[in-house]
């Protein structure tokens, strides 16, 4: 593996220096930038004829982040997802309604394979089409819901509006919720609305996808550390922090073949605990992610970097107009707006020309970010005027401000 060999050689590290897990702290980190720099398959360690699955997420600027799996890796993934499902004894007789997006994202297929592995019936509904989803959930007798927490609340609200009685008409007993942070208020709202047990799912495609850690019915997130070794480090110095201290979560994969990764910096801020849980598990517990060590935004479960927005603007017009990213809630779902200043360089005299510019920007954003973005054309200086100071990102979402 030329990438790691070069890194290790530079530091004078030899295989003999790594004798136990303790020695992990001496190894260099791997970052998202490393994955980008070796796009698409440069960090794969197996020949491509052994790779059976490729997933990808949007990258920070232009190039996506690519991950690969051998048949063995798929087995690992199924296993950790089966463990996740087992947190609620999901198995034969259960109907798992999977509303995570299917496709390049690892969310949809990760839960799909996990549910199949434990013998449940999977309904691969993917995202969108809320009313149809509710119909299927009711008529198919879904017992388990997998989705982002905000989409689960959206489903509940639409169900109420449509006249369903959530507890009578639906049989959802467990929900596996992840891909975005969820406040305690949101969790309680989901428990109350559906009468379900809330299971938190944690993962990232660079490590495997969902299934890196799973919540138990007692609400603790258990890291599957036989496959993924967790560390928490000081974001500035890179020093490993003791248990109980807040820092950046780092993972090293133990069993993966196609894309093994050493000390991957997740940029997720959390705390690790190593003490037995009431559920009986003794593996490491991580707290729910408290924030990010970078400027990544999570919009309806999709990761978005502000640099991607800038990339689209620059690509399209050859100039970088002044812009602001505005995040807000529309009902319970996130809504992302990009306010773009129309200056003398971009102003074409004609409503049609401006509407075309707006539509084109929206399409390009969808291509680049994989989510719907609403572009709003504004006058110069508007942004400073309405936001006070020159800020690029305005996050108006209130995690607690949810009607239950």
């Amino acid at each position, binding site marked *: 593996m030329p990438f790691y060999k070069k890194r290790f050689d530079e530091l004078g590290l030899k295989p003999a220096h790594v004798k136990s897990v303790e020695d992990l702290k001496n190894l260099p980190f791997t970052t998202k930038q490393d994955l980008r720099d070796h796009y698409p398959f440069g960090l794969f360690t197996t020949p491509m004829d052994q790779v059976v699955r490729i997933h990808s997420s949007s990258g920070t600027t232009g190039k996506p982040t690519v991950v690969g799996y051998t048949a063995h890796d798929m087995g690992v993934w199924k296993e950790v997802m089966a463990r996740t499902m087992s947190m609620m004894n999901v198995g034969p007789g259960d109907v798992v309604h999977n509303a995570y997006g299917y496709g390049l994202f690892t969310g949809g297929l990760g839960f799909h394979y996990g549910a199949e592995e434990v013998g449940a019936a999977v309904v691969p509904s993917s995202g969108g089409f809320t009313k149809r989803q509710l119909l299927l959930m009711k008529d198919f007798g879904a017992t388990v819901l997998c989705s982002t927490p905000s989409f689960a609340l959206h489903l509940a609200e639409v169900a109420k509006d449509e006249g369903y009685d959530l507890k009578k008409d639906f049989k959802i007993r467990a929900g596996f919720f992840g891909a975005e942070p969820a406040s305690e208020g949101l969790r309680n709202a989901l428990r109350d609305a559906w009468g379900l047990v809330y299971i938190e799912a944690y993962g990232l495609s660079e490590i495997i996808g969902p299934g890196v850690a799973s919540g138990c019915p007692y609400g603790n997130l258990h890291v599957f550390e036989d496959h993924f070794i967790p560390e928490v480090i000081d974001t500035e110095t890179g020093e490993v922090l003791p248990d109980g201290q807040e820092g950046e979560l780092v993972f090293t994969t133990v069993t993966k073949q196609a894309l093994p990764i050493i000390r991957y910096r997740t940029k997720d801020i959390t705390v690790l605990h190593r003490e037995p849980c009431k559920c009986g598990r003794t593996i490491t517990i991580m707290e729910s992610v408290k924030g990010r060590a970078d400027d990544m935004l999570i919009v309806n479960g999709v990761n978005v970097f502000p640099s991607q927005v800038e990339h689209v603007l620059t690509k399209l017009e050859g100039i970088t107009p002044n812009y602001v990213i505005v995040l807000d809630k529309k009902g319970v779902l996130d809504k992302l707006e990009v306010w773009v200043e129309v200056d*003398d360089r971009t*102003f074409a*005299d004609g*409503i049609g020309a*401006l*509407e075309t510019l707006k539509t084109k920007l929206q399409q390009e954003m969808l291509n680049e970010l994989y989510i719907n973005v609403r572009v709003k*054309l504004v006058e110069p200086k508007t942004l400073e005027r309405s936001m006070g100071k020159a800020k690029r990102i305005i996050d108006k979402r209130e995690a607690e401000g949810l009607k239950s």
Partner: protein
Amino acid sequence: MIKKYGIKQLSIFLENRKGRLLEVTEALRDASINIRALALAESAEFGILRLVVNNPEKARSVLSSSGFTLKEQDVFAVEVADEPGGFYNVVRILTENDINVDYTYAFVGDSKRAVLIFKVPSDMLDKALETLVQGGITLVEPMFFYD
């Protein structure tokens, strides 16, 4: 032809926001600029204010320094009889010559004559002026609007 009949029009980009139109007109008043003709086009989120003023140079610099996004373009004006068919005659000649009208608006004249302002694609402007003159339409010179 463009030199003789081209009229400088200012297009100003406006957000649909309370008080914005007031600010434009206020800036023009403060600079003693007289609006001779105007049209406002709007979409759900923004609008474009198009103005022909008595002093385009000054208006441009005043609005620009006030932070407005604007564009200066050549339009032309015709004078027609204020009676049925006046507008039709102009549009007919342009259409017969395959000249597309981007937009048009009226200048309020006296009770007998009407003045209409036309914007056509800039590469069509010369042709439009020539065909209208040949068709016997009276073009209005910029001096009519300017000081």
